[in-house]
């Protein structure tokens, strides 16, 4: 996989394997993420997708192997922004208070108003997170992940609970990633959604990488790749 000149390596995974209470989630993963990669991670349930994403984000430390972030990034433990099945928002607080908290904590001073507008959450901004519908909660959590301007954005099954307008908002924000030169890695079964956006596909099955292809893909190609490598 030749690295074209203007692509810079963001991070490298070497021999990542992870085992918890007896069963092996990952069995030796090696690949490199470049700074403008838009990766689609596909694989059947239980193939280790979420474990891999949690390992990259730093939530779990893999039992074997290391993750090397390339040189000039801060040496902090957490380098990526992560969205997963936990919304990582405080239930008794409102969306506005939550997002303001995450802005302050990450030392950024973006305007909260337009963040709410881009994710059309203005009408819910005052209600406590625990009273929100599943879709709004996912949008709020996506807003939290997107507002952290980190070099890598990790999205684990973002489209599950989103309605059509939610998916459009997500697609719009993903496109804006391209301009901000931030790479992303998305795990989803909604191949149609990812088709126009991703420039690299990684297929994973029972803890091992089966395919790693670059280029732009149509929906049918993605389905073919998925069927060949994962079924």
């Amino acid at each position: 996989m030749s690295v074209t000149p203007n692509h810079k390596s963001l991070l490298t995974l070497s021999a990542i394997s992870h085992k918890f209470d007896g069963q092996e989630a990952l069995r030796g993963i090696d690949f490199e993420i470049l700074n403008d990669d838009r990766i689609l991670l596909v694989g059947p349930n239980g193939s280790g997708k979420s474990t891999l994403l949690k390992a990259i984000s730093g939530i779990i430390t893999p039992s074997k192997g290391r993750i090397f972030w390339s040189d000039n990034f801060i040496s902090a433990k957490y380098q990526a922004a992560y969205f997963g099945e936990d919304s990582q928002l405080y239930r008794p607080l409102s969306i506005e208070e939550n997002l303001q908290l995450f802005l302050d904590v990450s030392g950024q001073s973006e305007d909260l108003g337009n963040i709410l507008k881009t994710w059309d959450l203005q009408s819910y901004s005052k209600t406590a997170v625990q009273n929100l519908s599943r879709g709004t909660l996912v949008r709020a959590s996506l807003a939290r992940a997107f507002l952290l301007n980190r070099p890598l954005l990790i999205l684990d099954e973002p489209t599950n609970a989103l309605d059509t307008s939610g998916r459009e908002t997500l697609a719009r924000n993903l496109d804006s990633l391209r301009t901000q030169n931030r790479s992303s890695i998305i795990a989803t079964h909604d191949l149609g959604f990812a088709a126009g956006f991703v420039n690299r596909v990684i297929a994973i099955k029972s803890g091992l990488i089966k395919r790693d292809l670059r280029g732009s893909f149509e929906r049918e190609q993605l389905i073919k790749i998925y069927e060949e490598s994962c079924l």
Partner: protein
Amino acid sequence: MKPSLFKKAETALHLLSIALGLYALYLVFMVVPNERVMGPVQRIFYFHVGAAMATYCSVGLIFLSALLHFATRNRFWDTLSVAAAEVGLLFCAVVMATGMIWGHAAWNTWFRWEPRLVSFLVLMLILIGINLLRIFGDKGKVANHAAAFAILAAVNVPLVIWSIDLLPQSAQLHPKVVQDQGLKDPSFVKAMLFGMLAMVSLQFSLVFVRTKVESVLRLKDSI
């Protein structure tokens, strides 16, 4: 270390515990004269102090393995701290039991509120806590949690001893045998020394074997 080296070291350790134990028993029962005031029951004293030394040794081991667990990612220190916690609790119970037997014989009360027994009572509660945490801890995180709690507990021991020393003198009833060198006869000191050595060496062999058992258990779990 090569496995055969381990095995040699272990046999040496077991032999040492047997030898030290026998010699200490010999000193206590055959050589040491009766203590004038308390008579033969005083002979339990040597193993009471020995067990106390073994308990402090275990607490030291727990503290050390907790620090090293955080310093290195090696899982061995976690198995060692499991073993040290259990053996520590065992010897702490021995200290309490021998203390009470001796207390009952000397002052016919089961539990005198004097400093040494109080600090061991607190230590026993702490060791019970450590072992409880091991049993009921969350499988993935218990290693870190137990190590963190071990550091909290180990740091607490000197504080407890300091606060007991500050207690007004009225509570001091413990025979100051050790401190004010009540031991007239030199064989008393020798017996006490070997009592300590025997108990500490038994403690190390127990920890050694328990660590091996623990690592086998973990091997079984992870297959």
